């Protein structure tokens, strides 16, 4: 991988990390608040269904995760298993795309009407 691409990955990792820092703080506070009285599907979906603002927040959260996690995993695979080259880049890209699709599907499942 050339230096320009490596700088791009480094920047994407940090930028997505900064977005995730805010998202994870909100997510941690939300889950700690939500589990106080136990969880039921009716209670969760009653709060989430049709809530556009929270849906947008979690869609952004998923997008940032889909950038951040594959880049981190790529570094680990490269350093620990000595996996390099085009196959690693393709695998990273596919994993990121799958995470985004699974994540947005989950957002739709919880927030969709």
């Amino acid at each position, binding site marked *: 991988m050339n230096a320009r691409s490596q700088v791009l990955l480094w920047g994407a990792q*940090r930028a997505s*990390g*900064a977005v*995730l*820092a805010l998202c*994870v*703080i909100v*997510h*941690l506070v939300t*889950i*700690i*608040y939500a*589990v*106080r009285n*136990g*969880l*039921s*599907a*009716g209670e*969760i*979906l009653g709060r989430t269904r049709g809530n556009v603002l929270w849906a947008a927040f979690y869609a952004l959260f998923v997008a940032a*995760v889909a950038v951040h*996690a594959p880049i*981190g*995993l790529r570094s*680990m695979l490269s350093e620990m298993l000595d996996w390099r080259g085009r196959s690693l880049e393709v695998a990273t890209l596919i994993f990121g795309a*799958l*995470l985004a699709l*699974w*994540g947005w*599907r*989950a*957002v*739709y*499942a*919880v927030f969709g009407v």
Partner: protein
Amino acid sequence: MKSDFRARNHPAYWAFVVHRVSGLLLTLFLPLHFWALGQALRGEVRLDGFLRWTEQPLVKFVETVLVLLLAAHLAGGVRLLMLEFLAWRGWQKSLLAAAAGVSIAAGLAFLLSLA
């Protein structure tokens, strides 16, 4: 080997290990988490069935560990961003302590909410 370990046995190395291991475990957990939330597509009853399954003590323990891992990865990541983008290098050990404190506080808050 011994000198290798001594060279690595310092707080910043352990912070690196925690960040890497928590990142890996959280990445492995993500598909499972998305699958679980996707149960809502099959209706409330299906999601309720899954939520009842999560009430087992072992699952609650794993959930608490996941919250701890998430908080640790968050705190470690914020520490890294601060080290890279702010000129606060003299504060490294204080940042490590703050990162550890934030993680434990989040884990305890989750445990207290579960109880």
